[in-house]
């Protein structure tokens, strides 16, 4: 495997990668339904649920940088945010008896309901 130096940018739930001297990205990875795995030293990989053996590997400059990226990427999906929101909503409701989403007028939206994960 050949390692190529890339500028990598995490923007919402996309990981863009650029050649280091170019302004336009050469590619992007949508970070939904993916697994971030620590590989050997300074290296992490991204793989996707429907093709788990295909790994996109990234080598960092340091172990610290590697951990930073792993933490950031694990939280990068919209689905993760959705789960966090449902979790907080539920906890607040349990503690205060009030639904915090009511003030935003979004409490009835299907995407914020606790029960359903299959639609």
């Amino acid at each position, binding site marked *: 495997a050949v390692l190529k130096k890339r500028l990598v*940018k*995490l*923007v*919402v*739930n*996309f990981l*863009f990668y650029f050649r280091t001297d170019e*302004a*336009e*990205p*050469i*590619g*992007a*990875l*949508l*970070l*939904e*339904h*993916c*697994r*971030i795995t620590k590989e050997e030293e300074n290296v992490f990989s991204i793989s*996707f*649920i*429907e*093709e788990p053996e295909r790994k996109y590997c990234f080598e960092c400059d340091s172990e610290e940088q590697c951990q930073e990226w792993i933490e*950031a*990427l*694990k*939280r*990068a*999906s*919209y*689905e*993760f*945010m*959705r*789960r*966090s*929101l449902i*979790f*907080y*909503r*539920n*906890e*607040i409701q*349990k*503690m*205060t008896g009030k639904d*915090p*989403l009511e*003030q*935003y007028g*979004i409490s009835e939206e*299907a*995407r914020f309901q*606790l029960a*359903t*994960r*299959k*639609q």
Partner: protein
Amino acid sequence: MKLNERSVAHYATCDSPTDHAGFLRKRVERHHHHAHHATSYQRRWFVLKGNLLFYFEERESREPVGVIVLEGCTVELCDSAEEFAFAIRFDDAGAKAYVLVADGQAAMEAWVKALSRASFDYMRLVVRELEKQLEEACTSLAACHKSPRRSSGRKRHLSNPALLPVQEKPAILENGYSTWGSGPDRDGGHSKPPPLPPRRRSAAGSPTGSPAPGLSPTLQESPVSPETACFAKLHHWYGQEIAVLRREWQERQKRGHP
């Protein structure tokens, strides 16, 4: 520009939550050789998941023909010959707008509402606000318990956080490989909310003040940023790729190949 399109297509069609779905007519501008424009509309099946609006040729299609990333955009009603039309416009001037037509007033309103709130940034705002509220709730609850009680009984109040069962906690912070309740507990057993995704760095610096009260739609970071150019490229690319593939397939069909 490359994209993990197989994963994207899989995400579009798998059973993860769909935030909205339905038929819409999508405006298509055709530019002919003689430089006159013909406007037509194509009926497509649209599926909104998170900040991604997929569209399919048919409801039963196994792969989307396109995806619109709903970041750095506004959704507004459209002045158009068509009734029930609305547009998705991007802050990046180079990105083309999408004009969509719904079946009726109710459908149009539902779509505009759903799409206006679909962005990742909106979601992040709400999550931050709730995290703050939860911390405040925890703090005030802890403060209640610090005050001395004169009760002779040693009964604990039911709302003591230490007694709350930690259920539905997303302990494994994976993007979709969610394993609720299993795996190492990173917070050492205390019911602490999961930490938030890192803020996108903007050219203007990163203020970390609390969000404006009342959940105003204006973000602290400018929605116009270099990143929106990336998304415009992504839309354009996906559309082109599908068009090319389609033509090739049609040609092969004509030549009698399977």
